[in-house]
């Protein structure tokens, strides 16, 4: 009964989607915003990666909201999983020497790669969110690889997170001071395709990278502590 009802519901939705999709051909985008962003993007923001200029400059306020949602999810997760007595971790045996050494060797390289991704966000495919996820994956490798290590210094992580969020907001508010718009690109834009270009975009993306990295690491750490 349940399966039949669900199946009928899914089929009805599929038919509705199929009828509506005939008006939207694939591979022929006609968006006016696309034309505007691609033609004026470099001139207005200085970033060669147009996706980055959309994320941080044209829709920067939206990105601030997104970072806030991620922050709220991390806070909510640690509030839900909070226990007064920390669970005893079973099987706290030290991992084998090869695994431990491999993790120790790989961890700084992964951090370096993540930092490269979020520093070059305005030039190459990449940016704060992707680089932050890579940094968090490095921390996850350490958690999985060395079983004897129990927890990070959470207060330092919270400080990193708060400071980088604060940098984002302060950079945006300085735009309000200089030109009357929140998140205005007030720094010199430089020559496109160089590392020091695009005004405030690299600064904001580096802040986002630190924030996302520490937040996702906090989520992983909360989940492992509660298990």
């Amino acid at each position, binding site marked *: 009964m349940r399966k039949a009802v669900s199946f009928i519901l899914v089929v009805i939705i599929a038919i509705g989607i199929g009828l509506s999709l005939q008006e*939207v051909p694939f591979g022929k*985008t006609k968006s006016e915003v*696309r034309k505007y962003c*691609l033609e004026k993007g470099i001139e207005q923001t200085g970033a060669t990666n*147009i996706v980055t200029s959309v994320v941080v400059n044209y829709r920067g306020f939206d990105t601030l909201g*997104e970072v806030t949602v991620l922050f709220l*999810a991390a806070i909510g997760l640690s509030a*839900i*999983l909070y226990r007064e007595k920390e669970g005893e971790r079973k099987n706290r045996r030290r991992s084998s020497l090869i695994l431990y050494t491999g993790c120790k060797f790989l961890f700084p390289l992964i951090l370096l790669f993540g930092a490269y991704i979020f520093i070059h966000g305005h030039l190459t495919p990449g940016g704060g969110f992707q680089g932050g996820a890579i940094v968090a994956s490095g921390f996850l490798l350490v958690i999985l690889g060395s079983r004897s290590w129990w927890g990070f210094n959470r207060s330092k992580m919270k400080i990193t997170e708060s400071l980088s969020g604060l940098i984002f907001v302060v950079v945006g508010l300085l735009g309000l001071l200089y030109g009357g718009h929140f998140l205005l690109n007030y720094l010199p834009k430089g020559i*496109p395709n160089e590392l020091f270009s695009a005004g405030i975009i690299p600064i904001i993306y580096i802040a986002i990278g630190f924030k996302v990295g520490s937040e996702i690491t906090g989520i992983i750490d909360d989940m492992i502590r509660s298990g």
Partner: protein
Amino acid sequence: MEFIENYLYYIASFGLILIGLYIILIKKNLIKMIIGLSIMDTGVNILLISMGYLSGGTAPIFSRENLLPSRMVDPVPQALVLTAIVIGLAIIALALSLTIVLYRHYGTLNTRKIRDLKW
């Protein structure tokens, strides 16, 4: 055949969305329902990206000199998907943490056995 070639990405993305919805509707295990949610999320992301695709287009990055703006795919849906992926991660993490608490309280993940959750 031409229909499939023209609409392959739409078919795949809506296939993923509908599979995810079906999993959420019929499965009883909460972890499996969250996996369905994740599959649905992926389908929505692929749909958004394919809406902005231009046949034979390049990535919207001016890394070389001879790239034309008229031959690039739409950057706006890609920026939206960047947002959607992060929000999806946050949602799944929150759902998993609620599942952990539910398991601690009831000792089971079966929605049939948890009171007030069956339909």
